[in-house]
């Protein structure tokens, strides 16, 4: 398989005033060239920090697990062990932006308010491409044009606060792509946008991905969005992946009660009732992780004496579809 990124056993802990917390535990996934992995889960499930770990962007209080392995194949074919990189080394800086790019939820806050969009774009271009000032500026204008910003030669000298929300996110995409990454991490890039603009941005991202042949990790808490953009899905709950598989399989036939709950939460056009919380109950705090299956405190189908005692292992259901749930433990055995 043509994996450009392979993450195995990613665990993240934080030193806090209240002691050590472990919001990500043993997460594994991989991304293929030109394909999109969707990472889904409620807020607090550890999606953002998992991807930040890929770029070594976690704060100093974070500790990576000992058997965490993150292997990345760079543009020039070199294999990089991300977990072994020194935090501020040249290699890390090249990885950030030049190999892996990141787009965040708040386009407004992602830009510095005191520099023009062009200033920040040219900075990124000159860091990662061998260009002089003039070439960088021309390239930046080209990129702005590519993401569908009209009048790019003028827009380039504007500040983020002079743009509309949708245009800002387009500019952010242009900024991130201008450094030439081959893997794009998009952390809830459309959550803060209006629905119509959301659709436009999603389309833009799919188009760009196809044109540039990038791999992508698309983070969201909305399975509806995933259906439009991802090839594969991993559903995260409280720092572990509870279900994974090809998007079509997951949407059509979700196996984990949590995934099922998330699917029900997608607002449907024919019903006006919009449920805010996909699954009843609150996500437990990372300071008080439940024992056993992390989801058992909210699960309507939990098996007493099993789910609250030990953690389920991942069961392969065939064709890349896997689930970590005792309800499916038997099916898994049949396949195996």
């Amino acid at each position: 398989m043509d994996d450009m990124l392979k993450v195995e056993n990613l665990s993240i802990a934080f030193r806090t005033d209240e002691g050590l917390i472990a919001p990500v535990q043993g997460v594994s996934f991989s991304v293929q060239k030109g394909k999109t992995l969707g990472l889904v889960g409620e807020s607090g499930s550890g999606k953002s920090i998992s991807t930040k770990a890929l770029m070594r962007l976690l704060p100093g209080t974070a500790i990576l697990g000992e058997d965490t392995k993150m292997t990345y194949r760079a543009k020039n074919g070199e294999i990089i062990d991300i977990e072994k990189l020194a935090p501020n080394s040249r290699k890390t800086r090249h990885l950030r932006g030049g190999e892996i790019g990141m787009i965040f939820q708040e386009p407004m806050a992602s830009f510095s308010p005191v520099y023009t969009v062009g200033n920040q774009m040219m900075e990124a271009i000159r860091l990662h491409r061998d260009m002089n000032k003039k070439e960088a500026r021309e390239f930046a204008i080209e990129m702005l044009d590519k993401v569908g910003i009209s009048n790019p030669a003028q827009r380039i000298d504007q500040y983020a606060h002079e743009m509309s929300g949708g245009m800002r996110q387009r500019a952010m995409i242009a900024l991130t792509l201008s450094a030439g990454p081959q893997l794009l991490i998009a952390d809830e890039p459309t959550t803060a946008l209006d629905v119509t603009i959301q659709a436009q941005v999603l389309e833009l991202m799919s188009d760009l991905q196809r044109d540039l042949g990038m791999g992508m990790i698309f983070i969201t808490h909305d399975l509806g969005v995933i259906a439009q953009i991802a090839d594969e899905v991993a559903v995260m709950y409280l720092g572990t992946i509870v279900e994974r598989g090809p998007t079509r399989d997951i949407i059509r036939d979700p196996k984990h009660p949590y995934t099922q709950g998330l699917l029900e939460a997608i607002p449907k056009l024919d019903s006006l009732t919009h449920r805010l919380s996909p699954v009843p109950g609150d996500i437990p705090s990372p300071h008080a992780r439940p024992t056993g299956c992390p989801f058992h405190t909210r699960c309507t189908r939990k098996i007493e004496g099993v789910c609250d005692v030990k953690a389920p292992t991942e069961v392969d259901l065939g064709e890349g579809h896997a689930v970590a749930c005792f309800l499916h433990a038997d099916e898994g055995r049949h396949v195996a």
Partner: protein
Amino acid sequence: MLRFTLERLVGMVVTMALVSVMVFLIMELPPGDYADRYAFRKYSGTGVNVTEADIQAIRVDLGLDKPLVFRYFDWIGGIVLHGDFGQAFAFETSVLKVIGDKIWLTLGILFSTLIVTYMVSIPIGIYAAVRRASVADYGLTVFSYLGLALPNFLLALILLYFANKWFGADIGGLFSADYKDAPWSFAKAWDLFKHLWLPAFVLAWSAVAYQLQTVRATMSDEINKLAVTAARARGVPETKLLIKYPARLAINPVVSTIGFDVNRIFSELPIVAVVLGLTELGELLLRAYLDLDMYVAGAILLLLTFMIVFMNFISDLLLAWLDPRIKLGASS
């Protein structure tokens, strides 16, 4: 930007007009008037018998018999139209002559204090925010408390004491004895420069304590902003990143409080000047108050306030230039 500048300018004029009224009222406050005090000062002890009529003559001569409002306009009109701040009786000459080049000395002290303040507080504040919970960070907290609690004039006394004890040197004053009354020359300017650091340090004391806190707090906020993470995720090298993104914004509150700092410095100046033997406006102001030489006092109070208002104006302009969001807000 032009409209913004004009707006601030008009605001400045209005403020100064109101300030001048207040200053004038303070000048009028002490019992008796200029004529009384002039006559008393000039003739008491000389054996000359001054009658009420003589005093009245002085009064009429100077227009002091007119109602308050007229006197105010006489006074402010003289200043605005002719640069005439009135008479200084303690020196029997015009206020302007008395003040003279003390304005430049005062500005020298002011700017060296501001430079010391920002050269110390900005880098250290930024450093403490980057290295939170380090020794520097704790030291800074302790220092800021002390800086606020130990008044500058006491600090000045303590410094003088130790300078005297350890080096046997009298480090007060603005000039060495050789240059005190010498005409201005390069050597004299250098001598002044050598003497300026102590008052600058003493006056910067509490301003530094205050600004350190501000810089550290804003920098800590800014460091955690998404824009910084986003820039880091684009591979911007760490030092450049810190300077270009959070530090650039962390100085905004400093710039916006330049006027406050000038105010604080001028507020403390008269007292510190007494201790350090600085012969500038603050010390002159104090002497004028003690002698009830109110034209001199009024002129100095007005000048000091004008400098504060002017620096406020400069700080507004600087801030608008530093932060594009402000310009936008002002023009819309």
